């Protein structure tokens, strides 16, 4: 089928999805032991979107992410070790411990970056697309945003300009059914948020967000279009957030039957089933075990890395001479 991932790409997506899941589970376990700092927003159950949507991008393509960006970081090619080190505030973190888990960036990979002001990633990615157009580069930019972010005013402003100027950008709406705790029907009068794309004259597609191949195909088609200069597109990937809003979520609003139903369609299982006929279950289990080991090693290493030393940031000083 057109725009399908190659088997190698599919294997890499499968591997990265396991890296992300293992990262999330380790963070959950360490949080329970009181060993994490600040809220952490896990994306268990949403790995297929972040990983598959970014799989066809180059390092020169930009991705703007959210407060729930672990799958986007790994998808865009960051190693798990500097990500873990960043989450634990170490000098070896992607941002030397200055950013934390919500704001990770690696400019050399085009990940710029996590953004914890809900909605802010939408104009952010649009601005990078504008820069690509002004300079005549053929790079695209991708905005990954949530169903909560889709309700912001700035979303409208940015999408209108993106479509008006045919900017090279793809909007990937990660519809995980919740804002912070509110269900989608407490935030919006419509179920399928991507019908709004029509209001901007922008094509859109709805996909099963737990199916990495479906995500790859839909997003890949929009990326191609954007790269050809035909303007932006939107993909709405339906999924479900299996864990709480963050590690500080006290729960009580997610229904057991919903969680069970979505767990039965866990994206890791979907990805496994899609590949088993091609490469065999044993091979997949080995890849899985390697991913787990990689994450374990990243945690071991990061947790024994040093903390940064504090230094004032003189570049933002109020006086033009050092006082």
């Amino acid at each position: 089928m057109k725009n399908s991932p190659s088997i190698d790409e599919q294997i890499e997506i499968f591997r990265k999805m396991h890296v992300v899941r293992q990262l999330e589970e380790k963070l959950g376990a360490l949080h329970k032991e009181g060993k994490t700092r600040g809220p952490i927003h896990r994306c268990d159950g949403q790995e297929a979107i972040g990983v598959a949507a970014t799989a066809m991008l180059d390092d020169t393509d930009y991705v703007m992410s959210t407060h729930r960006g672990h799958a986007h970081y790994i998808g865009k090619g960051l190693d798990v070790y500097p990500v873990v080190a960043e989450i634990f505030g170490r000098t070896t973190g992607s941002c030397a411990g200055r950013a934390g888990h919500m704001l990770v960036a690696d400019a050399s990979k085009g990940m710029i970056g996590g953004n914890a002001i809900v909605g802010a990633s939408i104009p952010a990615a649009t601005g990078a697309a504008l820069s690509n157009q002004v300079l005549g580069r053929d790079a695209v930019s991708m905005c990954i945003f949530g169903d909560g972010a889709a309700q912001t005013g700035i979303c409208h402003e940015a999408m209108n300009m993106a479509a008006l100027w045919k900017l090279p950008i793809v909007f990937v709406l990660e519809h995980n059914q919740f804002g912070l705790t509110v269900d989608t029907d407490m935030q919006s009068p419509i179920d399928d948020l991507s019908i709004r794309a029509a209001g901007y004259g922008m094509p859109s597609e709805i996909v099963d967000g737990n199916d990495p191949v479906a995500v790859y195909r839909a997003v890949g088609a929009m990326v191609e279009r954007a790269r050809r200069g035909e303007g932006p597109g939107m993909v709405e990937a339906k999924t479900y957030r299996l864990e709480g809003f963050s590690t500080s979520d006290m729960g009580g609003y997610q229904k057991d039957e919903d969680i069970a139903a979505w767990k039965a369609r866990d994206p890791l299982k979907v990805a496994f089933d899609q590949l088993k006929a091609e490469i065999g279950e044993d091979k997949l289990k080995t890849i899985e075990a390697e991913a787990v080991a990689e994450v374990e090693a990243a945690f071991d290493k990061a947790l024994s890395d040093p903390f940064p030393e504090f230094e004032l940031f003189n570049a933002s000083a109020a006086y033009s001479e050092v006082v």
Partner: protein
Amino acid sequence: MALMRYAEALNAALREEMTRDPSVFLFGEDIGRYGGVFKVTRGLQEEFGFNRVRDTPISEQAMTAMAVTAAMTGTRPVLEIMYADFMPLTLDALVNQASIYEYIWNGQVKMPFVLRTQGGGGAGAAAQHSKSLDSMVAHIPGIKVVAPSTPADAKGLLKSAIRDDQPVVFLEHKLLYNMRGEVPEGDDVLVPLGAASVTREGTDVSIFATSRMVHESLKAADALAERGISAEVVDLRSLKPLDLNAIKKSIAKTNNAVVVNEGWNFCGYAAEISATIMDFCFDDLDAPVARVTMPDMPIPYSEPLEMAVLPNAEKIVAASLQTLA
């Protein structure tokens, strides 16, 4: 030297920097075909095309956020926000985006963009089109703020702002656009950010002023001279980073300070300058620092009411005399 209006000097700076560096581009409301409501961008779309001089929809929040990421991905955007009164719409992009990334991403990105806007009262534009919100932006670490008071500074500072690798909010004044002045010629004549300028030397009192208030302060200095008082007028022009040495030097000479700014008094830019003087020049002061500012109220429309709230030469004279009393 060439005699130019303030608006023409800004236009020349934009044209020269766009010619010099293809990564400089402009966007904003009505700036292209029409040339901007204050005509600062006149002729630039014709010369450089739509790709580099874009008329935008009315979307200040997204435009500013887009300038931030456009800047960190290889361009040097110059964004026009039509009135400083609309700056509150730009704040998330400044406070939570532009100002943080160089630091929190450990130097991975630069942020070379300029946000041009114009503020100030005196034109009968009423409560939503007359404000000076200097302190609101100067408050944010990582954002530079510049306010030229002459055509020469308008050109030289704008060129420096465009070449700077950090975000610069560039505050113009609606009543200065038609002001004429001598502007040095040459593509590389810059006025550096971070340097104040002593507009008039004096020995008895230092008047630290910004934007159009520099001209009111010069009038005040004339009036004070008639009474035998020698006032020094210092145009702060780079509101941040602030030229602390210039302030120290002037107060060491005069031992008296008056601060003049068109913004509101409470938590205003003049309050910050007063506190700075207290922090660094206390021992040199003969009297408390005086402030001449906008009273803490909305800017009224009717002419006598508007004139009553605006700082002016008369109020500056009165404040100076009180300081020296």
